[in-house]
């Protein structure tokens, strides 16, 4: 090399520092991701892998055996996401706003306690709520009875009309800590001068929240929305732990994650089909990619303006 005089050592160490991370990341994450996209263009005929182009996608979207399940799972997944956006994030923001009150005592205790469900595994959360809501045990009906609302009780997880909403709310219960923490951090980082200036103008309390703080934390709300979106369209564990791979009753809680699991891994009488599984995974990839791009190019770039 001509510039060996200026750089006495060949800079092998850069490669050595980068190699392990890049190798593991490429081999176990990036390559399988693209390989999965590639596998969606193949199918198996007589135990041989045959290239079929976009045929699998046509099957998935149009052939009724597949398409009813796919559109059902996709629709359920959107409902799952909408509940999170409408319930989890507002509650998280409200809790954070209360917690950030400067004179509040025990704030760190509340914060730690409310975050506990987030650290529990889906298996614990799924079964715990299944037991609590179960008509056999009777905790939920008993508690509703105590406040005179027993007539409202139904075995929610067993009813097609309620099961998905109930599970979404269980998931909201579990993850409310994440928006709470992120918004709390954002609220703390608002400079005191801004709030004091508002106070001088007579803007305090709730109106300070709506007029000053909320616009300033919009970027964090954007981040939370995209995190929620990716997590929801990638969800599987809670549904599987609470309702099994068949996402009962009658597939009413089926989302893309459980649908993909059943398809590629096989379940009970159904044989696993890696190619259709890859096709569903590719559809999930496309959905997540569209969401992330919308966020990056649509929402985030517009929100930057509010930060100043």
């Amino acid at each position, binding site marked *: 090399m001509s510039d060996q005089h200026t750089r006495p050592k060949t800079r092998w160490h850069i490669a050595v520092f980068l190699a*392990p991370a890049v190798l593991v*990341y490429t081999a176990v994450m990036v390559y399988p991701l693209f390989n999965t996209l590639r596998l969606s263009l193949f199918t198996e005929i007589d135990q041989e892998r045959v290239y079929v182009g976009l045929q699998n996608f046509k099957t998935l979207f149009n052939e009724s055996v597949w398409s009813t399940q796919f559109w059902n799972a996709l629709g359920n997944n959107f409902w799952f996401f909408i509940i999170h956006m409408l319930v989890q994030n507002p509650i998280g923001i409200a809790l954070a706003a209360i917690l950030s009150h400067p004179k509040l005592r025990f704030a760190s205790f509340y914060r730690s306690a409310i975050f506990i469900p987030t650290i529990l595994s889906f298996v614990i959360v799924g079964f715990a709520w299944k037991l609590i809501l179960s008509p056999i045990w009777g905790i939920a009906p008993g508690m509703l009875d105590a406040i005179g609302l027993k007539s409202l009780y139904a075995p929610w997880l067993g009813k097609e009309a309620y099961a998905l909403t109930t599970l979404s709310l269980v998931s909201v219960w579990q993850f409310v800590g994440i928006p709470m923490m992120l918004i709390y951090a954002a609220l703390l980082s608002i400079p005191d001068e801004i709030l004091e200036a508002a106070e001088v103008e007579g803007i305090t309390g709730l109106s300070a929240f709506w007029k000053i703080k909320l616009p300033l934390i919009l970027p964090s709300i954007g981040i939370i929305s995209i995190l929620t979106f990716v997590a929801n369209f990638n969800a599987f564990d809670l549904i599987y732990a609470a309702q099994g791979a068949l996402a009962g009753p009658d597939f009413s809680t089926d989302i893309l994650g459980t649908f993909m699991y059943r398809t590629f891994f096989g379940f009970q009488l159904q044989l696993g089909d890696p190619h259709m599984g890859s096709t569903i*995974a590719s559809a999930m990839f496309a959905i997540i990619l569209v969401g992330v791009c919308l966020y990056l190019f649509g929402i985030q770039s517009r929100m930057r303006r509010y930060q100043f």
Partner: protein
Amino acid sequence: MSAARQNRFNLFAAHAALILYTLIALFPVFVIVINSFKTRKAIFREPLALPDAESFSMIGYQTVLKQGDFFLYFQNSMIVTVGSLFFILLFGAMAAFALAEYRFKGNTLMGLYLALGIMIPIRIGTVAILEMMVQTGLVNTLWALILVYTAQGLPLAVFILSEFMRQVSDDLKNAGRIDGLSEYRIFFRLVLPLVRPAMATVAVFNMIPIWNDLWFPLILAPAEEVKTLTLGSQVFIGQFVTDWNAVLSALSLAILPVMALYVIFSRQLIRGITSGAVK
């Protein structure tokens, strides 16, 4: 002063709201744990009562410890979590150092390439990952899980750690270079100790999702000897679904290690989230 009274009322309302939500958050855990110490009859008759001398029973725990190999599951979960964290931190810090410290062709591109994985979930590639693990004979080994979690954790680790490594003073590193330290020594002796808080943040972020994951143990390592605690308790509860004592005890046993980790690391975790490491 009405403003002061108003303020006190606000504080009171704030406490009321927070206490209410804290109860909602803790109630299910509380119910599960107290009932795991009760007899079957008491579980159903008085589900909300604390266990007393008459209703106290450890029968559920006895069944769990006899029937399920929870110590093995716990050990597997430990190996997978600690192993993955070790590789995430070591490889992540090395790559972050390379990106933060040196100027070379493709630096930005490499950073972007590694950052892609922050938003794209690794589960999308599961079909091909399983195929690869079958081909390499890693299926039903803990290595399969460690590799997957390492790959999954690296993007965010590199991102966070390189932010912190940019703040390490150049004078210190240059002093080390003048003293004749190799680049490796500068990294391991000078830089790594200084970014320990950031490494702890990364570790805590990764620890809980790895410990709690159900998807990859279910698909890559479902065999009895390599089951993690999460999968083990899922399977156990599925089998003993009518034995309420056993189910409640298994749930309590599964809660225990995570709660212990949380109590030890909650300060670190909350500081990590609120310090803006993920912004």
